[in-house]
């Protein structure tokens, strides 16, 4: 488990370093994801511990947003003043984005023949 955590942290650190050194607009952890992916491709398989640690982290991903979310307490005054506009923008935009993304995905998937039985009707 420690080795797997070390692997994740090392990839993140390497990603942060790359982002700084090359002043890329991409955040360090995202580069870290790409690095780990390249390592996995090279090795051709996933160590069991890494698979377990990753699964645990991703299964509890929403917990990790809680501390920053509690920051809402600092903005109660602003939210009180502008809540309607913010709520309309956030709700409207989130739903609209999902609809546009899913319809474009399905449309292009059908046009390019990227549909597969496994991912289409079979699993639905």
């Amino acid at each position, binding site marked *: 488990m420690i080795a797997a955590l070390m692997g994740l942290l090392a990839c993140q650190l390497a990603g942060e370093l790359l982002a700084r050194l090359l002043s890329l607009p*991409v955040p360090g952890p995202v580069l870290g994801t790409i690095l780990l992916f390249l390592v996995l491709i090279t090795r051709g398989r996933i160590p069991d511990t890494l698979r377990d640690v990753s699964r645990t982290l991703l299964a509890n991903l929403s917990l990790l947003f809680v501390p920053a979310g509690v*920051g809402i307490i600092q903005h109660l005054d602003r939210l009180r003043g*502008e809540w309607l506009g913010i709520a309309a923008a956030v709700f409207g935009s989130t739903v609209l*984005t999902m609809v546009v993304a899913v319809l*474009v*995905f399905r449309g292009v998937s059908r046009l390019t023949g990227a549909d597969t039985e496994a991912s289409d009707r079979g*699993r639905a």
Partner: protein
Amino acid sequence: MITDVIEPAIQDVWVYLTARPLVWLTVTIAAYLIGQWCFERAGRRPLVNPVAIAVVLLVALLMLTGTDYQTYFDGAQFVHFLLGPATVALAVPLFQNFAQVRRAALPMLAALVAGSVTAILSAVGIAMLFGVSLETSRSLASKSVTMPIAMGITEQIGGIPSLTAVVVMITGIIGAMVVTPLMDLLRIGDWRARGFAVGVASHGIGTARAFQVNEIAGTFAGIAMALNGIATAIMVPLLISLLD
């Protein structure tokens, strides 16, 4: 007489404990477990969102105890920190499902561009229609991407990063609540498309929801979240300069 001794003692212990990270770290995880418990008890219904429940409980607790956010965050930051390694961990499901991902490269690219532009323009546009201040509406532009990226973008365009953090969280919760009924309504049976859409629109919290429902959906949501972080970082400054 006894209470005269005990009360100051409790006071001392409280003052001691609240100055350490342990209390707020423990309380954060406890609040989340309560949220999870409610979610399970409600038959895993998406409207009962564990993050929303945890945040409401914690905000109430901070207000009741008169604790400021910085003190709270000194403890809770250990949880917050794990966002980085968790992002890196997305490489694992990506690798496991790579064959499917590669086949879907074109639909993903198209949905990424369309979704990213829609997210930015519609958030800022709707806010402007409602007469929201410039500072606030700019803080909404990157609401659909994962928190560390979104806060960086907001800083760059002159919004309020900590407000963005809040808006990002709300966006995630809305996406997680809405995705299942919305996709069923649209009759989308394709897990790849369902996952990708929720990942583009509502980043990690949407991805967490997708992983609860289906691993393929979760994988595509994770990819969408990573790609949209990059796309939005490039597109927000461009689109905002067009709006000015």
